[in-house]
């Protein structure tokens, strides 16, 4: 490893970690209920409960989800060789949501039949497994159908992803009719992308899956660099292209699946964060992937704090997915115009 890059990696990681710490501190300090950090740390109730049982777990949850989505986004952009790729837009989040919903609905059906399998099937691990499977299958479908004449066409893959999302939305709407109204309401809220209050066990499980997937992507980052070249070139440089691609696919899907299981369909994080990170550390994935992971965590922690705080005067709280979509939708369009303008200029 060259000294210059090591130094840049250290700077990138330090900046990312600093952003995450600052965002976490802000999010932990602010909320609907004014608390004193001093009394919370001193164990005074209710401040201590609010800080340790509610805000900090929620910060952790947002950080895990943001880290997963941003890293998956950066990896998918490399695979598709297009900056517009993103788990949400590509339909990977949609596939995860569908997988998770199928498990949830099946659990309700099992519980209705009086089977003892209903409760465990509706628990976090099996929903997460369904989400990861759904994400993997949809990645496979989107990238498979995005091939025209044997070549991956980014625009085609994006279009397939968008159509796949609409398809998923329709199927989930139909599935909602199969579950009790209250469950359906919960499903809706989950699907909009809400970082709520999860139990410690669920958090640990999510952190483990996301940690493994992100670690795998970071470990593969040198090869991911080569994947952004044409397949023939990458192969000539000694990369087993199909195998590397499959591994990256699966790791990105697992990260997305876990993120969706924890926080629902939070969109555009994988678009905004890698783009900003690329501005800061450049296109080298050995820097970009770890930086995206940290900045993604910081970004979603901040976005969740914004969601919690912005609507306080109205006495209610929107899901964080609404905030990221509010920022991300226009950002996507801006990025699309810019990409087009560049391609037009290079033609």
């Amino acid at each position, binding site marked *: 490893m060259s000294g210059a890059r090591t130094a840049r990696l250290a700077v990138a990681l330090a900046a990312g970690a600093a952003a995450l710490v600052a965002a976490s501190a802000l999010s932990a300090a602010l*909320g*609907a*209920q004014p*608390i004193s950090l001093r009394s919370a740390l001193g164990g005074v*109730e*209710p401040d201590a*409960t*609010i800080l340790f*049982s*509610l*805000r900090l777990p929620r910060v952790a949850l947002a950080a895990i989800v943001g880290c997963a989505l941003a890293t998956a986004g950066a990896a998918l952009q490399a695979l598709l060789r297009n900056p517009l790729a993103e788990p949400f837009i590509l339909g990977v989040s949609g596939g995860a949501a569908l997988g998770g919903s199928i498990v949830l609905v099946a659990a309700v059906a099992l519980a209705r039949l009086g089977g003892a399998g209903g409760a465990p099937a509706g628990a976090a691990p099996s929903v997460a497994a369904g989400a990861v499977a759904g994400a993997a299958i949809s990645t496979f479908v989107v990238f498979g159908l995005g091939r025209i004449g044997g070549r991956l066409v980014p625009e085609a893959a994006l279009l397939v992803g968008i159509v796949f999302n609409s398809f998923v939305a329709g199927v989930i709407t139909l599935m909602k009719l199969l579950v*009790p*109204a*209250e*469950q359906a*309401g*919960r499903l809706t*809220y*989950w699907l909009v992308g*809400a970082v*709520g*209050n999860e*139990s410690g066990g669920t958090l640990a499980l999510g952190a483990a899956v996301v940690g493994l997937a992100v670690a795998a992507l970071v470990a593969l980052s040198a090869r991911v660099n080569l994947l952004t070249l044409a397949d023939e070139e990458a192969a000539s440089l000694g990369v087993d292209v199909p195998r590397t691609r499959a591994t990256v696919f699966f790791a990105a899907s697992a990260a997305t699946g876990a993120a969706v299981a924890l926080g629902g369909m939070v969109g555009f994080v994988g678009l905004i964060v890698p783009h900003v990170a690329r501005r800061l550390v450049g296109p080298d994935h050995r820097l970009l992937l770890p930086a995206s992971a940290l900045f993604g965590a910081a970004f979603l922690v901040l976005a969740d704090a914004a969601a*919690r705080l912005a609507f306080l005067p*109205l*006495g*209610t*709280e929107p*899901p964080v997915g609404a905030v990221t979509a509010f920022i991300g939708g226009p950002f996507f369009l801006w990025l699309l115009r810019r990409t087009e303008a560049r391609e037009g200029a290079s033609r």
Partner: protein
Amino acid sequence: MWNVGPLAACVAIATAAGTAAAPARAADELRPPGKGAARGGFLWVGERPAAAPRRVVVLAPSLTDVVLAMGLRDRLAGVTRLDDAPEVAGLPRVGGFLDPNPEAVLGLSPDLVLWVTDGGALAAVRRIAELSRASRRPFPVLAIEIDTLADVLATPRIVGDALHEGERGEALARKLRDDVEGVRRRTAGLPRRRVLFVVGREPLVVAGPGSFPEELLAICGAESVVRGERPWPVYPLEKAVADDPDVVVDAAVQEPADGIRRLAAIPAVRRGDVVRLRNDDLIRPGPRMIRGLEELFRALHPEAAR
């Protein structure tokens, strides 16, 4: 080329305005009264029936309950798919509370349609009223606005008059009012308990100011801890923790009871001071709500309930 767009838009708007002019009259006629039934907030669309209606279609389960409580099950021709009273199990369904199906209503050839005004169903009910006017046997729609407990208590009289059963309506109204006053009297001298009324846990949705539970809690010698302006806010859990209610009422009846553990950060939940409701009577603004009131009182004041 560029000026065609605005022109086409103008034509489109003009056309739309032309077609919209006719239903606009019906819309005015059906505009919700804007005040509760207790203050005269009900309106007739179409002629009031000259003879006692025999084929009544009810578009709200709480009104079905009113008709049933008056002992007039035989007058009903159709109810919503949300109606779960055993007496109406065999009746045809005409859609939901928010999405009544005009076709199904017309298909039952009713002689009266009862409706609780609600924005969600306004378009469909307007359509029903139009179709009624255009048909050979027009039927009236009675729209009743029910926002408060006083409206709930006033509704039996209005429905009784509509069904030409004024005495039964009067009797039911009196009975419901006596039940409410009975509960209110028994709370005298009891401690006021501070309550968080939970209707959804994920996200946490609670009853706030202006909701029925807030009013019902006050009658039961309790008070809601929720402040603000929204009747059903998505409530930050940390506020619930800081509010530190004496009791949490778990009205998320569709969800498994043990799901309340998700809210264990609230001290009352940790202590086990949770009243789990057995059904959603308390948010059914009709006779069931009054029945639920008695149960709520017993649950909140076990020391006084005999």
